[in-house]
């Protein structure tokens, strides 16, 4: 097997991985950095983020408000020390992106502009029209080309971590074009592989979002934390799941049911307002809005489309000119994919899986339980999102914690000692044999698509917007059955060069493990909090028993072992989450106290 020696390896070339690579290169220009990605970096899913990225900047805003919005938005499951660090460093990251060339939307005076976003008590979302993720990703990618110490391994598929002598010392990857294996030896590894939304059938995520990094870390004994918290974005296109940004509502869009009624007023999100108003109506948090959709659907008040039930997102009153300036991509997506002109007609939308709040358990400095292994971005759980992430906190997260991961891993790499190379090669060879086993299998039965779709369906049914013990139990059993059938997955293609069927099979293995962690973590959380909403007797938040993180530990034969970890609460004691009129009162009180 070909061997590459480097100091630091980063798996994943999206926003978090690129930010980590740049931070490491700046921290120590002598460090050799390998950036390993299964796609060319600018294809990564960061590219699809639309609405914007949080950072306190206006006179009306304070770090304390951003902190409180995030902690209450996360239904108090956030680690408050991590949130404090996060909010204190968002803005400098947005400025840094500006210095690197990000084309932020501007005010007439040339200053950068901000917009309102769901669950945020004032405008603090920096945006580049409605292509913020695209511009952040391209800015980071193009800026990364400045640093000669960053060596890219584009279209190299990471198969597994090399763990020896109790620490992570690199990885094994497949060069996709040739199907050849390469062992990348490193003194530290950062996982930045993004989320796992593709374990669900209807989702807003790119095809690459398959939880690879989560699966790898999990199999090496690193716990996956808070995996039951899966965010449904309330506004995606029915059928395809294509994302229609929250920015639409930040700019003043309305959600109406089939009677043209702004139904959110019936779900403690009123009073009805005509202008975008923080934490009110359409600017409530994503979990509440997705749950409200579900009730409307149960009551038969949704619209029937050929692709399923929907409500209407009205943007007509914003006018064509504003849509072109602020929401050009949404305008085009609606026209191309639906034949709808949003200046004339409403866009049918419904909830779709969007984001994994949980992930690889890491501390507020991105270190995991495995020495030498760090995690940042959506694949990680550093503790800032709790039970429900606020929109525009994740682009900020990948910058803030991408930088931390790059710096921390660089520091570790400088001090770490490598194991004997023969021992590392032995581990790498075993990984290669395992992956080749999939190609050699003669007795394959199920096609990949059969298992993948069955997984997506059962996660949707049992571990969706609303959950019950019965449904979650059924999903746990179904996933176990699918894992068993996965042992006999059928491949048409047994060749090596650019065999994407083979890679998809490896991804499916990761997905099934991640899905299992989600389903069991959900079943055992006997309360309702944030995005984990139960319809059985556990329909209330239970701080007595569950103000704690779920830790799922992998077991090779059987469901995960679950454990729990206290939530770090420093200065905001648990309280009721309130939005709409009630929240406005809270904001006024906070501002009053400040004044």
């Amino acid at each position, binding site marked *: 097997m070909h061997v590459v020696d480097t100091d630091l390896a980063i798996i994943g070339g999206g926003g978090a991985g690129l930010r980590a690579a740049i931070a490491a290169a700046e921290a120590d220009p002598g460090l050799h950095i390998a950036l390993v990605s299964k*796609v*060319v970096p*600018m*294809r*990564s*899913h960061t*590219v*699809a983020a639309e609405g914007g990225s949080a950072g306190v900047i206006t006179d009306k805003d304070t770090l304390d408000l951003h902190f409180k919005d995030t902690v209450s938005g996360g239904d108090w499951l956030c680690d408050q020390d991590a949130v404090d660090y996060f909010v204190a460093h968002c803005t*400098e990251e947005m*400025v*840094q992106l*500006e*210095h*690197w*060339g990000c*084309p*932020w*939307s*501007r*005010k*007439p*005076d*040339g*200053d*950068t502009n901000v917009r309102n976003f769901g669950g945020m008590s004032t405008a603090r979302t920096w945006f580049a029209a409605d*292509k913020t993720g*695209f*511009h952040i990703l*391209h800015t980071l990618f*193009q*800026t990364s*080309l*400045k640093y000669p110490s960053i060596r890219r391994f*584009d279209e190299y598929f990471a198969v597994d971590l090399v763990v020896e002598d109790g620490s992570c010392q690199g990885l094994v990857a497949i060069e996709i*074009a040739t199907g050849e294996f390469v062992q990348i030896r490193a003194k530290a590894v950062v996982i930045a592989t993004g989320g796992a939304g593709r374990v669900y059938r209807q989702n807003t995520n*790119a*095809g*690459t979002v398959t939880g690879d990094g989560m699966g790898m870390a999990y199999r090496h004994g690193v716990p996956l934390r808070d995996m039951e918290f899966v965010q449904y974005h309330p506004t995606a296109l029915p*059928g*395809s799941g*294509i*994302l229609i940004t929250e920015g639409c509502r930040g700019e003043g869009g309305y959600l109406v049911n089939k009677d043209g009624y702004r139904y959110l007023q019936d779900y403690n999100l009123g009073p009805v307002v005509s202008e975008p108003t923080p934490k009110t109506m359409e600017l409530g948090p994503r979990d509440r809005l997705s749950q409200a959709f579900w009730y409307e659907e149960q009551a038969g008040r949704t619209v029937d489309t*050929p*692709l399923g039930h929907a409500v209407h997102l009205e943007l007509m009153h914003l006018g064509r000119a504003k849509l072109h300036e602020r929401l050009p*991509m949404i305008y*085009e997506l609606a026209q*191309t*994919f*639906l034949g709808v002109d949003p200046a004339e007609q409403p866009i049918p939308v419904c909830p779709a899986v969007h984001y994994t709040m949980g992930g690889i358990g890491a501390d507020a400095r991105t270190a995991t339980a495995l020495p030498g292994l760090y995690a940042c971005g959506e694949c990680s759980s550093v503790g800032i999102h709790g039970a429900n992430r606020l929109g525009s906190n994740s682009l900020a997260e990948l910058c803030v914690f991408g930088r931390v991961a790059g710096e921390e891993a660089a520091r570790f790499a400088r001090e770490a000692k490598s194991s004997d190379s023969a021992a590392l090669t032995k581990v790498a060879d075993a990984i290669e044999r395992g992956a080749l086993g999939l190609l050699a299998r003669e007795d394959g039965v199920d*096609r*990949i*698509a059969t298992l993948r779709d069955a997984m997506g369906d059962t996660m949707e049914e049992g571990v969706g917007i609303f959950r019950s013990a019965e449904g979650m139990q059924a999903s746990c059993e179904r996933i176990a059955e699918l894992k068993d059938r996965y042992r006999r997955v059928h491949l*048409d*293609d047994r*060749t*090596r*060069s*650019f065999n*994407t*069927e083979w890679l998809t099979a490896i991804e499916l293995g990761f997905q099934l493990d991640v899905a299992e962690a989600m389903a069991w973590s959900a079943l055992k959380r006997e309360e309702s909090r944030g995005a984990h909403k139960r319809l059985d007797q556990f329909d209330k938040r239970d701080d007595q028993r569950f103000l704690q993180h779920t830790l799922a530990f992998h077991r090779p034969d059987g469901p995960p072992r679950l454990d729990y970890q206290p939530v770090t609460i420093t200065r905001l004691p648990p309280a009721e989450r309130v939005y709409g009129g009630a929240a406005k009162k809270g904001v006024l009180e906070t501002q009053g106290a400040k004044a």
Partner: protein
Amino acid sequence: MSDARQEIEIEVLRYHPEQDKNPRYQTYRVPFAHDTSVLQGLQYIKDHLDGSLTFRWSCRMAICGSCGKMVNGEPKLSCHTFLRDYYPGKLRVEPLWHFPIIRDLAVDQTDFLEKLENIKPYIIRDEKKPVSEGVYRQSPKELARYQQFSQCINCLLCYAACPQYGLDSDFQGPGIMALLHRYNSDSRDQGKDQRMPIVHAEDGVWSCTLVGYCSEVCPKHVDPAAAVNRNKVNSTMDYFLRFLSPRGANS
């Protein structure tokens, strides 16, 4: 893929480096509905008919730039192109022209990535401003000067459309010229002098023969042909200015 009633024939170019001497074509019958994209058609084949068919895709919403293919001889994003528009005729899907084929519909993008690195596609400053001093001012008018060229998703459709690049791949090509122009036109950038030699060079703007097909096929309305032509003006200006300004003479 809801409500599928009709079937369409998709003919796909196949080439496997371990097995084939030359490319060949293979035809599949695919069910489709009004909203089925060409990409979804290919995914149907891979999922249900032939797992060996190889193509790139990712976001399926026309922003990641992965899924460009030739569809009946035209460069298209396959997620953004719909089977209904070809029915009842059939559809021929091929890899993007002017690039080496790795396998089936996947082409080698290395040439583009190397060219991208060469143009220094990042903000260059004589002196770095500390982050603590806040953002640079940039008026909406200044933003508008380069905004259009910053929309390039690197999908390479313009390269498949460019006859000049087809003849000589040393030509920088439309996408690269658009990105170069994007940084040169950014009020925050001071690196124009470092990039202009690429514009002047024989394989820079002057190789463009003004066909304009690149702008026609661009799914993001970047209009790379306009960038190339503005660079012709810039290149000419630079040529004359070098006789006037000492700075130009050194570049």
